[in-house]
C-alpha cells in the first residue's frame, strides 16, 4: 500500500508541476459552470433546483479529459525508458498501475470538489433533492474510475501518447455509446446484455438517485478489469516464448 501511495504521490505532483492539472480544472469548471448556469437547459431555464444539467455536461467533459490525463501514464515512461527503472525496483507491476490510477482518481476528485459551490448555490435557490446530488457525484466518480482504468490500459499497450489517447477514446465510445445504441436496436437477452454493458445506462440509473448494487459492481469490476489488463500488459515482458 505504501508503494502505491509513493507512485500516486509522484504522479499527482507531476500533474501539479505540469500545466495539466490547472488546464483540467479551469476547463472542467468553466465548461460545466457555463452549461449549468448560463446556456441551454440551464438551471434558470428549467426552473428547478437540480444539478442534472451539471452532471450531464460533467459526464462529457470527463469523457474527453480523462484519456488526455491518462495517455502519458505508461506510454511516456515506455518511450523515455523510465519504465525500466521503475520495473526493476522493489515494487510490483500492480502497485505501479494502481498508483497511477489513484493519482488520476485523486485529481478528478479534486476537480469534483471544486464544483461543490454549484451544489450549495443551487440548494440555496430552491428545494433540492440532496440524495440525488450525492448520487450524481458518486456516479461521476465511478464513471471516472472506469475511464481512468481504460485510459491506463490504453496507455500500457503503446509508447505513443496520441495512440493511447485515441484508443482510450475509442474504447470509451464503445462502452458509452455503441453498447447503448446496440441495446436499442437488438432485442431480447442480447439487448439486456448490451444495456448492462453500457456505461451510460448505469450512470443514468445512479445519477437518478438510485444506488443499485448491480451498478456499483459494474463500475468497480470494469475498473478492476482495465487495471488488471494493464498489469498483464506490463507483465507480458516476462512471457517466456
Amino acid at each position: 500500500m505504501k508503494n502505491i501511495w509513493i507512485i500516486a504521490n509522484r504522479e499527482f505532483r507531476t500533474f501539479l508541476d505540469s500545466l495539466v492539472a490547472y488546464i483540467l480544472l479551469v476547463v472542467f469548471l468553466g465548461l460545466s459552470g457555463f452549461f449549468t448556469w448560463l446556456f441551454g437547459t440551464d438551471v434558470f431555464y428549467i426552473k428547478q433546483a437540480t444539478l442534472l444539467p451539471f452532471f450531464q455536461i460533467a459526464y462529457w467533459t470527463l469523457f474527453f479529459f480523462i484519456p488526455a490525463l491518462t495517455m502519458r501514464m505508461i506510454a511516456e515512461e515506455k518511450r523515455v525508458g523510465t519504465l525500466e527503472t521503475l520495473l526493476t525496483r522493489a515494487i510490483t507491476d500492480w502497485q505501479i498501475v494502481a498508483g497511477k490510477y489513484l493519482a488520476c482518481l485523486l485529481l478528478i476528485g479534486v476537480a469534483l470538489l471544486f464544483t461543490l459551490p454549484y451544489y450549495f448555490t443551487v440548494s440555496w435557490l430552491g428545494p433540492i433533492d440532496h440524495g440525488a446530488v450525492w448520487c450524481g457525484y458518486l456516479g461521476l466518480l465511478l464513471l471516472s474510475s472506469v475511464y481512468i482504468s481504460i485510459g491506463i490500459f490504453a496507455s500500457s499497450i503503446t509508447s505513443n501518447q496520441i495512440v493511447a489517447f485515441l484508443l482510450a477514446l475509442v474504447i470509451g465510445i464503445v462502452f458509452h455509446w455503441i453498447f447503448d445504441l446496440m441495446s436499442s436496436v437488438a432485442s431480447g437477452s442480447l439487448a439486456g446484455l448490451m444495456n448492462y454493458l453500457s456505461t451510460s445506462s448505469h450512470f443514468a440509473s445512479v445519477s437518478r438517485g438510485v444506488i443499485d448494487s448491480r451498478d456499483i459492481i459494474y463500475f468497480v469490476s470494469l475498473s478492476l478489469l482495465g487495471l488488471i489488463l494493464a498489469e498483464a500488459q506490463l507483465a507480458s515482458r516476462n512471457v517466456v516464448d
Partner: protein
Amino acid sequence: MDITVSNLSKTYGDQKAVDNISFQVKTGEILGFLGPNGAGKTTTMKVLTCYMAPSSGTVKVGDLDIFDHPEEIKKHIGYLPENNPLYLEMPVLEYLSFVAGIQGVTKEQLPGRLRTIVSKCGLNKEKHKKIGELSKGYRQRVGLAQALIHDPEILILDEPTTGLDPNQIVEIRNLIREIGKEKTVILSTHILPEVEATCDRILIISNGKIVADGTPDTLSNQAQGKYIVTIRIKAETPEGIAAQLRKLPGVSIVELDPTRPDWFQITADTDLETREAIFRLCVNNHWVLIEMTPVEERLEDIFRELTLK
C-alpha cells in the same frame, strides 16, 4: 551477495540474444561485461535485474531465485539502465527521495542516505535543480545516485560512462572502484580501457556466448598462449644473430625490423625462460644487449580476435 547465472538463454523471436551462458560473480568483485554492440550484454543485465524473465536457465542472487523472489532480489540491486532514463521534470532531491521510498528506505534513514549519496556523487550544488536542467555528466551522476540510494549490495551498471567527457569518465570510474570495494558490481561496456582500468575480472561475450573469462592479465596471455619480446642488440651481423636466436629452445619466430636495424622481435612459448636464454646467449657471445621489452598483447587485440570469429 554472490550472483550465480546458470545456463541462461533468452530469445527474441528466432533471434538468440543470449545463448546458454553461465558465470558467477562474488562479493567485492567488479565484473566487466565486455562485448560488441548487440552481443547480449544488456539482455543479460535485464534478466539479472528481474526486468524480464529468461527463456531458459536461471539466476540466483544470494540464495534467492529470480523466478521465486523477484521483489526481494530487487531490493538488493541498484541498477543504472542503458541511456540512463530519468524523470526530467523532477528536482534531483525529490527524485532520489522517490526512488528511496520504493526501495524501502525508511523516513528516519532518508535524510542520512540522501546526504551521503549526494556528496558521494558530487551533486551538492545541483541537488535542487530539475534533472532536465542538468548536463549529461550530472545526469549520469543522478543515475548512479538513484542506483545507490538504498545502499544495495549489488550494483549493475549498463554502459555507465557513455557520453561523458574524459574528466567525468575518470571521476565515474573512481567512484565505481570505490563502491566496488565492498559491493558486487557488474558493469557493461564496449570501451576497452574502461574495463582495464576498473574491473577485477572480465567476461567477453559475443553473439550471446561467453568467449573469454578471466582477469585482464590472464586474458592477455590466454588469448594466444604466446609471449612476445622485442630486443635490441648492438650488432654488425643481424642475420647471424637472428639465426642464433632461432636455435633457442621455445622460440618459434624471430623477425628483424627493417626500419630499425638493431631490433629483433621474438615470439616464444614461454616467458621468463626465453628472456633468460636470450640474456645468456648475449653474454656468451659478448653481444651488447641494449634493450629487452616484453610485449603485452593489448586487450583490444584479444577483443577483436575473440569477437570477430
